[in-house]
């Protein structure tokens, strides 16, 4: 192929956006159809620059909306290319209709989602509202906690999504600004090593195979729709996790960096645990270690694969805990919170289940401080000592005014 390779240092100082853009370059994406939106803009801008500078052989398609961006990606993927884009927040919301098209058509598109709050009121900072919006869309959703993860998980995403036993689109989530604009040391792969991990794109049922013409995007009514949705759900539930695990294993062999479907931290003997996602996982780990010094056996469960939901892996991770709190970074809209509900579903049928409470935090980029987590672990330990949840089941962390609690 006619493109230049880029010399990278073993460790580069990259923010999450640049890490993702470099991964797209190294995977040699054929088509990026994009409509830029804060805070994800530098990802597609980065790809466009690599393309203009001759480091990628591909097409960059500037479109008029995020709906068109994902539609362009769907067309290019159905035609038989390696396809990716990036978005955030309102753009992601506009993309939702086409997200379902992509997964239903089984097109292995990779979407980098730099998580940001949803208006109104308008807010460009990080929370998980947009990520939650797509959780029933039939995509695989991987969650990065830092720029290193954002880089690595893109390779995992292409490897899994494009596998002919999977053929489902995959999102790589990172926290807006907290990951996307925070520069950290990122261990790199050389272009050759990185590309070898994902390999050449292997088309399947592609429209450019003229010897085998196919129709994509068909209509089915009550006579067929259910079967197609059942097949898609079956494949999500049974085929994805083994491929993700295999990709994690191969990636560890290649780079020494180990990823897990559920990231357990000090959970072997933990009495109290916090379940969370994104950058909060790293903060919670630091606080958990400090709580251990104070005699509280604290642990953290970070969710790496959000969809398909790691039901049994979470059961296994939490089975020994006595009190847990879920941290949802999304306004729950009149419900207990996604993680609270998912944990309740996981744990309900266990013989011995931990005390469960749910926290809403960090909306619109509000900081989750170490003090918040110290207080939370202390509260969870009090629940363990009392043998019951002493607080309301749903509480808001870090919002001004009188303490806000429900349920």
């Amino acid at each position, binding site marked *: 192929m006619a493109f230049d390779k880029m010399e990278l240092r073993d460790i580069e100082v990259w923010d999450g956006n640049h890490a993702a853009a470099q991964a797209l370059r190294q995977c040699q994406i054929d088509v990026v159809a994009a409509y830029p939106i804060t805070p994800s803009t530098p990802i597609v801008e980065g790809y466009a620059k690599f393309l203009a500078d001759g480091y990628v052989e591909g097409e960059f398609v500037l479109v008029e909306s995020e709906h068109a961006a994902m539609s362009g990606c769907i067309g290019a993927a159905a035609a038989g290319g390696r396809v990716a884009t990036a978005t955030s927040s309102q753009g992601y919301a506009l993309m939702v209709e086409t997200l379902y098209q992509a997964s239903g*058509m*089984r097109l292995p598109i990779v979407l980098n989602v730099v998580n940001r709050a949803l208006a109104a009121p308008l807010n460009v900072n990080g929370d998980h509202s947009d990520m939650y919006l797509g959780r029933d869309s039939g995509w695989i959703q991987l969650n990065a906690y830092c720029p290193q993860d954002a880089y690595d998980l893109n390779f995992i995403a292409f490897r899994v999504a494009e596998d002919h036993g999977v053929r489902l689109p995959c999102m790589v989530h990172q926290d807006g600004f907290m990951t996307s604009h925070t520069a950290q040391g990122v261990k790199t792969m050389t272009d050759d090593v990185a590309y070898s991990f994902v390999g050449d794109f292997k088309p399947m*049922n592609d429209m450019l195979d003229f010897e*085998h013409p196919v*129709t994509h995007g068909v209509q089915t009514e009550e006579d067929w729709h259910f*079967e*197609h949705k059942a097949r*898609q759900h079956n494949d999500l539930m049974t085929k994805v996790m083994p491929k993700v695990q295999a990709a994690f294993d191969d990636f560890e062999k290649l780079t020494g960096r180990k990823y897990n479907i559920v990231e357990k931290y000090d959970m072997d003997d933990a009495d109290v645990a916090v379940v969370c996602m994104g950058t909060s996982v790293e903060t919670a780990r630091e606080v958990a270690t400090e709580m251990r010094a104070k005699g509280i056996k604290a642990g953290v469960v970070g969710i790496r694969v959000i969809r398909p939901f790691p039901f049994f892996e979470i059961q296994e991770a939490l089975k020994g805990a006595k009190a847990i709190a879920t941290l949802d970074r999304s306004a729950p809209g009149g419900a207990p919170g996604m993680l609270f509900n998912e944990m309740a579903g996981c744990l309900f049928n266990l013989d011995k289940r931990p005390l469960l409470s749910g926290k809403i935090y960090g909306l619109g980029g509000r900081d989750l401080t170490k003090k918040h987590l110290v207080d939370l672990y202390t509260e969870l330990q009090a629940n363990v000592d009392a043998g019951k949840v002493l607080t309301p089941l749903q509480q808001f962390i870090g919002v001004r005014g009188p303490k806000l609690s429900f349920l």
Partner: protein
Amino acid sequence: MANRGWDEFEIGAMLRSFDGVSNDIATTQQEDRNYSQSNSFVASVADWRIEKPIFAKDFCIDCQFCWIYCPDMSIIARDKKMIGVDMDHCKGCGICVEVCPTNPKSLLMFPEHADEEAELAKWPAKESKEK
């Protein structure tokens, strides 16, 4: 195909046009193509038609206007000769009648239940031009 279960089809609601390899489809007549079961060519997709075209061969000049204009490729023509209408795919839109230049027209619309032979027997006569 109608009773196939959820795990018995290809993924992605993707439909194949033909079974096997199709190398030279543009020069292969429809009746010689290896259409797959999921191709609408092998199904009737005309059951909502309420008016149908009837073809009066005697007046046709094989101009091919109907063949060009038909939006559903339902005019059957071979060697540039009009043969008839594919009634499994014709939706009854009447465009073929509209574009037919002969006098009288070689295609006219009738209710779906009309008898073809009876209508052909009383086909309109040539209209004389008024001076």
